[in-house]
């Protein structure tokens, strides 16, 4: 049995009535394997005939270029870092995620607001302030948290990687002048924030130390259960009509 997260009213200010779509989110540290898992979930849902939309962190057409420029120039403070990512998210939320959910589709997000919570808090932003910034968004139907021992996710990222991005490694935090050392410290703090949120935000925890196949089997069975009673928009098409 999966315990669905309780819906807090303030979270749904824009969306008072239940939306017909389904929102599934994956969260976790870099190297936790979440992107692989959501990709496999998407392939499965599509092969089952569902219409699925997918969006990932920091990918707004409008804003991502400015963000990457600003990161290159090291112009960002914790607050502007937070707000630029919030703008990026809001743009995708207002243009894609929310309308897609209203239309009844399945929406898959590789990272959601919890990524912002963990990273912004790690950079020293106030927790309540960050939560307010994102208080207009819908709580996902399921948030999978891929929880891996730090050493495992670090190894996955650091093996075969010659270069870590400045912000990715948390170099702006001045923990260490060594990117690898800084990355380890920063990831440790982020993991702690994820772990702390898990209960309160109702994460579904997946043990990311298991094999990819074993994790995917669990993810699919949970999603399957959650989809009971869900009607995909494609089912509304007339019997016998031709579509690709």
């Amino acid at each position: 049995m999966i315990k669905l997260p309780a819906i807090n009213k303030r979270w749904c200010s824009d969306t008072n009535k239940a939306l017909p779509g389904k929102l599934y989110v994956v969260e976790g540290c870099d190297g936790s394997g979440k992107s692989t898992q959501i990709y496999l979930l998407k392939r499965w849902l599509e092969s089952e005939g569902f219409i699925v939309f997918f969006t990932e962190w920091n990918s707004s057409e409008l804003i991502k270029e400015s963000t990457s420029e600003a990161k290159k120039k090291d112009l960002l403070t914790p607050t502007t870092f937070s707000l630029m990512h919030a703008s990026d998210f809001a743009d995708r939320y207002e243009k894609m995620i929310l309308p897609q959910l209203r239309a009844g589709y399945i929406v898959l997000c590789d990272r959601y607001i919890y990524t912002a919570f963990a990273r912004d808090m790690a950079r020293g932003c106030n927790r309540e302030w960050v939560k307010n910034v994102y208080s207009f968004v819908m709580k996902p139907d399921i948030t999978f948290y891929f929880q891996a021992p730090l050493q495992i996710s670090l190894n996955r990222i650091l093996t075969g990687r010659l270069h870590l991005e400045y912000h990715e490694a948390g170099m702006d935090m001045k923990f260490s002048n060594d990117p690898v050392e800084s990355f380890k410290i920063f990831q440790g703090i982020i993991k702690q924030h994820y772990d702390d949120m898990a209960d309160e935000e109702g994460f579904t925890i997946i043990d990311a130390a298991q094999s990819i196949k074993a994790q995917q089997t669990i993810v699919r069975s949970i999603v399957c259960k959650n989809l009971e009673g869900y009607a995909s928009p494609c089912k509304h098409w007339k019997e016998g009509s031709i579509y690709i």
Partner: protein
Amino acid sequence: MNNELFYGKGLPYLQLNKLPGKLIVIEGADCSGRSTQISMLKDWLETEGHAVLDTGLKRSTLIGNVIFEAKKGNILGKKTLSLLYSTDFADQLENKIIPALSAGFVVLADRYIFTLMARDFVRGASKEWLMELFGFALIPDMVFYLSISPETLLHRTFSKYGCLDYWESGMDLCFSSDMFESFKKYHILLKKEYDEMANKYNFIVIDAEKSPKEIQSDIRAKIKVFLDQK
């Protein structure tokens, strides 16, 4: 200490104490005469021996272009636009205003969070959400509000630009397809929001129907009293 400096949660990672400079804000609608007043104030203050930084909204390099591009095509959601403006404001606050205040400058801000909030309130934004969002803003030492009737504003807009602007007429709110009608409705609503904030945030309300010279001497008199206090 932090709590007395900011409207809300502030900038916890900076651990600021009271800054030696002075932050003076001039608020008011477009064409209310803000930039004229600021340039006269700057002249005066510099003559008096103060180092002055003048700064305004939408001058940050961080996302200035995004806002500009997006407004051309009217393709941004309300929350996205609010967040972009707040990003821009935070950038200027942390990278320009706070360093100048730390160095003891008088900072003259051509608009502040109040304009951003008024615009969004009129567009139906949650007050609670926006006020908490802008909780990182420093509380200014003085906020002057150039109060002006929508009627006068209309004529000043024509004499300055010769025409009305899409955004400054609130056309995105779809009150009316007639820009003239929309302008009036929009500025009546905006003024209501400014007037409400005037009470809440202790604005010094300046009658901006007066001549620029009279307005300037009103503002200088108040600033002089304030600066002489120390």
